[in-house]
């Protein structure tokens, strides 16, 4: 039996007259890699922020890990991880200090923080850099570290907002290895991206156009439905209809 960890129904966010997210309804299953695609300004980030409890929905329903986003936004936060477009670890703290800080904030015990730190540094082969300031690391490594820190407290769901922006292809591949590993450990992945090759890695995809979800299915089914050779074509076909300028 499939367990649904994100359920939304008619979820809407308005900023004044502008409807950023327009009545979206979808579910995400446990352990799934759920891709959230759309052109810039389509409303992906806003939708994601609502699910993370960073932004209050205007209307509609949504539960994340079984918790209501309206009444218990704070409770959601201990059940999720989040990695934003902007790199948001502390560049003036070292790798280990960042791990320790976020571990502490998520209320991990000292011994857990210690073992987690060792595991994480080993997994990312960051041993020589462990005591270096995060600001001095190359972009690709920063992103991998940020992801690892986002799942440090073993959340049920991790939200990734364009995590691989500005990262070289090799580092992107390694990043996706980490994502698969996390998904294998039962963490649900909710990811937005502009890279169509990455879209192919997802179990299911939703494509947002002008704040609405225009298509939602597995990559294979979408390609079949739109008679496209690859995801690029599917995306063009749907996004071309967008009225909203960037």
């Amino acid at each position, binding site marked *: 039996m499939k367990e649904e960890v994100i359920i939304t129904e008619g979820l809407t966010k308005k900023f004044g007259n502008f409807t950023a997210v327009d009545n979206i309804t979808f579910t995400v299953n446990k352990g799934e890699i759920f891709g959230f695609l759309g052109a810039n300004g389509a409303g992906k980030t806003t939708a994601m922020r609502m699910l993370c*409890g960073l*932004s*209050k929905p205007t209307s509609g329903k949504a539960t994340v890990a079984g918790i209501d986003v309206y009444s218990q936004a*704070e409770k959601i936060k201990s059940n999720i991880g989040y990695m934003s477009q902007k790199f948001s670890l*502390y560049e*003036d703290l070292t790798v280990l200090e960042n791990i320790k800080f976020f571990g502490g904030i998520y*209320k991990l015990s000292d011994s857990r923080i210690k073992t987690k730190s060792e595991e994480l540094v080993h997994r990312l082969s960051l041993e020589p850099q462990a005591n270096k300031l995060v600001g001095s690391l190359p972009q690709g490594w920063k992103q991998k570290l940020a992801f690892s820190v986002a799942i440090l407290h073993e959340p049920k769901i991790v939200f990734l907002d364009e995590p691989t922006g500005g990262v070289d292809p090799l580092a992107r591949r390694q990043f996706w290895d980490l994502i698969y590993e996390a998904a294998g450990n039962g963490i649900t992945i909710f990811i937005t991206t502009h890279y169509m090759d990455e879209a192919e890695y997802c179990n299911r995809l939703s494509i947002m156009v002008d704040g609405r979800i225009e298509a939602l299915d597995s990559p294979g089914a979408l390609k079949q439905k739109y008679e496209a050779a690859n995801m690029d074509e599917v995306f063009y076909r749907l996004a071309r209809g967008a009225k909203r300028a960037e």
Partner: protein
Amino acid sequence: MRTLLFLLQKEFKQIYRYKAMVRIIIGMPIMQLLLLPLAADYEIKNINLAVVDNDHSTYSQQLVSTIIGSGYFRLAEYNQSYKKSLKLIESDKADLILEIPEGFERNLVRENKDQVLVAVNAINGTKANIGASYLNNIIKNYNQSLRMKLVTSNQGNQAIAIDLVNSNWYNPEMDYKSFMVPGILALLVTIIGGFLAALNIVREKEIGTIEQINVTPVRKSYFILGKLIPFWVIGNVVFTIGLVLSWLVYGIVPAGNLLVLYSFIWVYLLAVLGLGLLISTYCETQQQAMFINFFFIMIFILLGGLFTSIDSMPGWAKIIARINPVSYIIDVFRMIILKGSGFKDILPHIGIISFMALLLNSWAIKNYRKTS
């Protein structure tokens, strides 16, 4: 509680690594306390005086040399006509004109009285007015000494002069440094408190790290406390440096109890930090935070009673002074450092500032939104 420790540890590490910040924290109080009291001076010196002496007598010359000998005046012109002296005032070369009439000596000796004219350049009002009152004093003293001389030589005709003697309590030598140094210290603590914490939070907003914090289950009050406490400690360090400096350099030792002084600083820092934190919750960029802070701190400092007396301000300014934390710290510093007041005397001040601290900080916590 443990969460708070993690927040504090992170904050202290960041401050320590931000070398420019450390330099500002240590360097600013030292620089300001060493330089400013030398220049920000209530005493007025170098007043340019034009003398129009129509008498050319021994007495008139004596009067002029007494005035110049006082050290406050500089002779800009001597022995020109009144009209020419007026030109000097117009071109700002003179602040005051002293006109000694013809027959000054004769009239003084024969009729026992005469008048001199003092004309004041009101463009630089403070300087000229204070200069005029200095001049009045000098002329009065000169007059006194003349009369004494004349009286003793005349015998019999005893003129009784009543003299007014001032004694300035708590600051016996009217030493402006005893006013200014604690005042500058008060401003320093205010600025450090007001700015550092505010800019720090807004910086996290700009970099984007605050979003990573907002998506964690950390409590708002912990986050604000995590910002408040480090800068509270820094405020205390700055204050201590300042206190030691004013003792070493200016010999100012608080007449009152140090613990009383510190107990006020402790709540005062909470209040100004609270204001900074509150402002930061409304701002998105460091520029905004900076300007809004400037707006408040400028008003607080100018209406705080350091440079001008609150008692002589208009009614609305007095009302502002009541809600102005700076006016309380200036008052308390003068009470404790100059007068030696005790804890009981400053209790009302502590009460009001504690109330402000509570209000501003809870407002800041309330207004800090993890969810927009």
